[in-house]
């Protein structure tokens, strides 16, 4: 029998006759970083809420580490760390006090480890949480999620509000957790984040699972919007012929295109010209869904 960390079967949730999660079946292995990608309203938070028994499913079932999420939710919550999408803290309470409160609720906490994590993310635990920046509040949320050394971490938009340094630290932390055998459910609206860290990614669209892709495969076919500015006129047909280049548009010494996969061929092609500028950016979720599945990410 397979030892799964998360297992959902035909999970469906309706809010006031609107389906926010439909027939979702997925499995997460131990030590796996599993991404759930989708725009706002795709059902990512609902999935986490069902796993924690904060929200009751309309039909289907969900198991975490062999425990039924609805009927054995206490056992589930003893083994899970959770970073919610929205954090609220009472006025005046400091990070230290909040940690003490949360420690009282569950235990399983090493104070030295907490302090190390706080130093790592530059969190001032002696300051009231409602007076620190949004970014620091998010970091604190992260700290409280990982401090109990859980077997499963549920991260709902963990990079929201984080500066690039903290994001980098978060990805390192997730990699360390994976190394220690901890599974992570990583919900986000950014494919770039998923590509960096996830072993597998589930694409959700209006509550429906449309595909599960391996991280390696995603990285191989990752999309970039590229903009090149040349010193002189170039022959655009040179670029149109490249297999992993799409939507090539050339105007006034500028080349716009969508690159899928590695940029080797493109770099070799442009190397014969003088390049004044090279801009590469992540495509929007809308563009990703359109390119991968031919559908609009934000369904009505």
């Amino acid at each position, binding site marked *: 029998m397979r030892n799964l960390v998360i297992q959902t079967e035909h999970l469906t949730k309706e809010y006031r006759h609107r389906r926010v999660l439909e027939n979702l079946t997925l499995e997460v292995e131990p030590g796996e970083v599993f991404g759930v990608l989708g725009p706002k309203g795709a059902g990512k*938070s609902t999935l986490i809420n069902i796993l*924690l028994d904060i929200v009751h499913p309309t039909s289907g079932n969900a198991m975490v580490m062999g425990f039924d999420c609805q009927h054995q939710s206490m056992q589930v919550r003893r083994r899970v760390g959770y970073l919610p999408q929205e954090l609220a803290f009472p006025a005046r309470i400091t990070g230290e006090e909040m940690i003490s409160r949360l420690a009282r*609720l569950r235990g399983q906490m090493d104070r030295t480890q907490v302090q190390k994590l706080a130093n790592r993310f530059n969190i001032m635990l002696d300051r009231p949480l409602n007076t620190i920046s949004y970014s620091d509040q998010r970091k604190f949320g992260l700290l409280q999620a990982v401090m109990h050394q859980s077997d499963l971490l549920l991260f709902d938009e963990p990079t929201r509000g984080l500066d690039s340094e903290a994001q980098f630290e978060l990805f390192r932390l997730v990699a360390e957790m994976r190394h220690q055998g901890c599974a992570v459910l990583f919900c986000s609206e950014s494919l770039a984040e998923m590509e960096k860290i996830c072993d597998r990614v589930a694409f959700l669209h209006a509550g429906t699972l449309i595909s599960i892709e391996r991280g390696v495969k995603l990285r191989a076919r990752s999309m970039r919007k590229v903009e090149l500015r040349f010193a002189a006129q170039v022959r655009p047909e040179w670029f149109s012929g490249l297999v992993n280049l799409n939507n090539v548009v050339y105007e006034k010494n500028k080349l716009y295109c969508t690159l899928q996969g590695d940029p080797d061929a493109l770099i070799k092609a442009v190397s014969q010209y003088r390049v004044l500028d090279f801009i590469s950016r992540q495509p929007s979720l809308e563009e990703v869904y359109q390119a991968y599945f031919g559908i609009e990410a934000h369904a009505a």
Partner: protein
Amino acid sequence: MLLNLSIDLLKDRLDRMRRITVILAVVYAIAGFLSVFVEHWEPGVKGVSILFRETAPNLSAPASPLLLLYLSVLLPITILTVLIFESNSVFNPNSANVPMAILLSYPLPRWIIFMSRLLYLAGVTIWMLIVCGTGWIVGRVMNSALDPGWSVLAYLPGLILFVNFFAYLGIILGRFSTRLWVGLIMVLLGLIFTYCTYFFPDGAVAGLNLVYFSLLFAYLGESPLVSNPSPVSLVFLLGVNILAGWVLWKIFEKSDLGYLPS
């Protein structure tokens, strides 16, 4: 754990409660102070005051028409207003100041979270009673050497149950409709019915005087304040509180508590 959670909640709401406490203590002290003038202002007594005076010939000592106004309208409405807004904050998972999302991810049974909130609301009720009651009495004693009205204490258990029932009703209706204002309006209608049947019981349903349909009857006894509330009335009030609390628990147990999509 239950007590700890309630105390945590109290600490979290302390700033807000402190402001309310100061305002209410001052307002009630002024009201208590002025009430002595009104009681002795025979020729000019008008409006609500005269209404109570005329309909309260057997009012027990200290004979005061204002006492009825104080016990039946002023105090319950004040406490209920605070309670409904507080209960909306502590029971609403989307409330900005109560970190329910994190709390719900910890291994705590729902009933503990639920009971800790009820305990907190009971604490708020008692605290409001102390504040308003002390304010009122201090105001009266400052103004006069008259009996400050200790007999009022007999009505306190009924008052606590009366306001808590309407607060539960507010939460239940608010949760059902997912809108606080719907809960507030329904509670207001319930209160209007309660006051009308108690103060203007002209008419009967199935041979019963309408006053018996009023929860104020269970809290204050026969209209208007001819005797202290009977133990049976208190048991009745306790019963309706338990019933409302049970319905509230069922809603809390079955409901989705996360950040819900709009």
